[in-house]
């Protein structure tokens, strides 16, 4: 509804760059995580740091909740309104402000698309390393907020390793510079905190990134394994051997079936359990030798077939097949949930077995597509929302997968972020103290707690309930042991709904 606040926003950016009509803002009701959505109060499209600062200052002064948004390709609901917020879309701030090829730095606006940056510096044989699968549409600002990863993190790191400085608009509208293009900035590492803060601490409006020279040569291999365990052992062995490939990706049979039905048909055998996509890069003089060693290690672990790409086209097909895996799931199932757990790489086989057990227990297929070198799993839980109860079971299965990752010493998210989706699992990974400290850090930036509120860090009430439910289970484990699954369900219920008493009492009962 148009009100005085909308008028004030229009005053800053003009009629054309402020949407408030419910029909227009509906497109901003969620991001790539579609399970939850809510209509924002308005969507504004600033074009400069100054406009962002003016908007933030106004909204903060009037205690109007707001959140930033890039391309909206996030997979955890980080850019999804919870209802009535003003969305700051940074899509129009999409300029490449400066490139310094001599020192390998670029300054970009947050709305610049990830792959566009790589294309714009390609003529000097440079590229921007972090490459999430959505790189052709996602923005660097979104990558900044989510600390996005990609397929080549194993050797080249994630977004935080490539951002060296930024101009940031703080929640109250003040503008600060953080980081340093070279060396280290004095004082606390505010840049380090801001990257991956999911838009809860501030909005980066100018981002200085490192760009890299393209490696002289690449070799890519595809290896088929009869058994997942052999593929996992190969991954570990390659690394123990002292080789850090640019990427090691794995897909299981279900994922292979999906991608082979898509536009990128590779023709994977139907009776293998796992395929590895391994890429090594470096100086031309050395890559063949390294690749030969990788092939040898695959053979040592009973590979059925291993082939090295003979052309760029072949390499591109293999990569497309891998990068389009999520989308291809539509060929197998009407709906899916993608998870993003991380485990120590050496425990891959064990955790994959647990995932298989979870799949069987819930009667849902789980496809596995993941960055094996990083131990970053992307289990895709397939379900059909038209079947009553199946969506709920899929959410449960996904949550159990994440718990299996945490239990193995890992994390609930490696690159997709917590957002709304995994906020319940935060209390499983962190203690109440640890969450409280993170909330205190948030308050140092955003005392009113209105910037992208309800994301990333759960509110205290919610964790208390989870802990409470867990304590009850621990106190009554003898009784509950006879029906562990129900107990699990109750805990998740408490977490998912944030409801207290009746859930916990029913556990007790």
């Amino acid at each position, binding site marked *: 509804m148009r009100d005085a606040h909308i008028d004030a926003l229009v005053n800053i950016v003009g009629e054309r760059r402020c949407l408030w009509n419910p029909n227009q803002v509906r497109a901003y009701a969620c991001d790539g995580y579609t399970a939850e959505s809510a209509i924002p109060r308005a969507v504004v499209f600033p074009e400069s740091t100054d406009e962002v600062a003016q908007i933030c200052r106004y909204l903060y002064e009037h205690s109007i909740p707001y959140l930033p948004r890039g391309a909206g390709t996030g997979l955890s609901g980080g850019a999804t309104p919870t209802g009535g917020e003003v969305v700051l879309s940074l899509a129009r701030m999409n300029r490449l402000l400066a490139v310094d090829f001599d020192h390998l730095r670029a300054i970009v606006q947050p709305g610049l698309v990830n792959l566009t940056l790589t294309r714009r510096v390609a003529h000097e044989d440079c590229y921007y390393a972090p490459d999430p699968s959505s790189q052709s549409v996602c923005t660097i600002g979104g990558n900044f907020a989510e600390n996005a990863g990609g397929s080549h993190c194993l050797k080249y790191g994630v977004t935080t390793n490539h951002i060296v400085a930024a101009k940031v608009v703080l929640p109250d509208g003040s503008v600060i510079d953080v980081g340093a293009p070279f060396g280290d900035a004095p004082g606390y590492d505010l840049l380090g905190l801001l990257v991956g803060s999911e838009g809860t601490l501030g909005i980066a409006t100018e981002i200085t990134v490192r760009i890299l*020279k393209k490696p002289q040569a690449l070799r890519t291999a595809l290896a088929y394994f009869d058994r997942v365990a052999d593929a996992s052992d190969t991954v570990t062995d390659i690394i123990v051997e002292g080789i850090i490939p640019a990427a090691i990706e794995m897909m299981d049979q279900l994922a292979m079936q999906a991608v082979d039905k898509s536009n990128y048909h590779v023709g994977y055998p139907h009776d293998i359990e796992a395929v590895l996509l391994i890429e090594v890069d470096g*100086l031309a003089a050395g890559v063949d030798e390294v690749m030969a060693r990788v092939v040898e290690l695959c053979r040592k672990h009973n590979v059925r077939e291993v082939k090295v790409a003979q052309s760029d086209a072949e390499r591109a097909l293999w990569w497309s097949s891998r990068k389009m895996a999520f989308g291809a799931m539509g060929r197998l199932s009407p709906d899916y949930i993608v998870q993003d757990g991380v485990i120590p790489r050496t425990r891959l086989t064990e955790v994959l077995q647990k995932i298989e057990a979870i799949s069987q227990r819930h009667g849902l297929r789980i496809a596995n597509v993941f960055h094996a070198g990083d*131990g970053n799993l992307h289990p895709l839980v397939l379900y059909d929302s038209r079947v009553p109860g199946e969506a709920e079971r899929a959410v449960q299965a996904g949550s159990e997968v994440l718990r299996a990752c945490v239990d193995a010493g890992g994390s609930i998210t490696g690159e997709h972020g917590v957002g709304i989706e995994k906020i319940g699992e935060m209390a499983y990974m962190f203690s109440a*103290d640890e969450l409280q400290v993170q909330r205190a850090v948030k308050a*140092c930036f955003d005392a009113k707690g209105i910037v992208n509120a309800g994301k990333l860090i759960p509110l205290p009430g919610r964790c208390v309930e989870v802990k409470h439910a867990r304590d009850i289970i621990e106190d009554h484990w003898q009784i509950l042991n006879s029906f562990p699954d129900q107990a699990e369900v109750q805990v998740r219920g408490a977490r998912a709904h944030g409801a207290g008493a009746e859930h916990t009492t029913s556990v007790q009962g």
Partner: protein
Amino acid sequence: MPLQSKPHPADTAEHLANVIGLHHVRIVPACTLHMHESSQDVCLAEPSSEEEVLAVLAYARDHGLSLLPCGAGRLLAYGPPAEAPDIWLSLRRMNRVVSLSQGDLIVSVEPGLTMSELTSTLTSAGLMLPYDPPAPADATLGGLLSAGVSGPRRALYGSLRDMAISLRVALLDGRVIRTGAKVVKNVAGYDMTKLFIGAWGTLGVITEITLKLRPLPMHRETVLAAGTLDALGSFRERIVQSALQPSRLEVVWQGETDKTQDWVLAVDCDEHERSAKAQTQILESMAHDLGLTVETLEQHAADTWWADHAGAISDRMVCIRLQGPPTKLFSALAPVLDTIAALAEEPRNISATAGGITGVARIAFDPARALLDDPACWQKLRDVIAASALEMTVERAPTAIRAQCTTSPFVPGAAAVMQRLKQTFDPEHLLSPGRFLGGM
């Protein structure tokens, strides 16, 4: 609340001795722990575990005692001069390797472990932490992390902020938090690890550090090209614009050699042998084009050269760090060195190195008497550096010099956030008081 007087150091020592053992608590003049400290008595406590650290923190909190967490004390000549703390919390005894996973390329260590202790453990497992700080080999990981310094290897591998993935931190209020996760990729919650890197122990006491590792390169090869600074600048540019993969790229002042070729550009390569040889060949032909003379060191000889290089920087009393685009750094080196020659006790003993990729330069020297006595001398250096549009940090210096460098380098907005962070973690300002930049 009634004003309490602080307990006498002897009472503090007696209490702490009950908790962490008689042999690990002493009363000593601060200057015996670090040459730049005052002669005031402090209570030196050397806990051996996180529980003992918490016990010391609890006592300090309850009695309003200031604390200085430190390792070997190798990096302490930094920041504004401050009063001696009530409790000197040495973490040197917490020097265990907690866990090491070869397959995961991850190690967890206690903060008092030194670089050389870690290196020997890792080397025997065929691993390395690709980190070569400009500090003595007995500097501790906790100290290095808190100082946030980095060395030449940053060119390829980044700094500790790229390697540290998880910490355990004992907070003043008695809580222990874990930050991050012991896996190489993790975006759950805020990246709290970063907050404690370079925080100089002002927010909490780090009790465990988890680091990402790399396989130990089987082959090491360093090309040294000697020539004029201009020619080396062109060489640097060609290297950066090529697809070569230097793991370190530093231009280094060779004070004592012949005046015409007083600099070398050192290009290190961690690739395996065949690639390294190919890289060396390309470098040699580039160097010959530019009329530079080239020498190549391999394996142990290369390691020794880099170790000597780090030693030359960490041995001097004063070390200043300059930051900026490498081309600017290179062109500022000559005027900066000229100015420093007038400030140094022995110009021949000046060490200087500038990263051709990192954009970080360090110049180390022993100060002349005049520099300590006359602030105007220092101002001259600052003017020269300001004219080059570079940022300067005094990483190490006697108190007299540090006292001249107390202006806050922060812009107001950022300073406010930093002060709120400090207030959140240490509301009574007991942790390393006054030692952080700007006297925070």
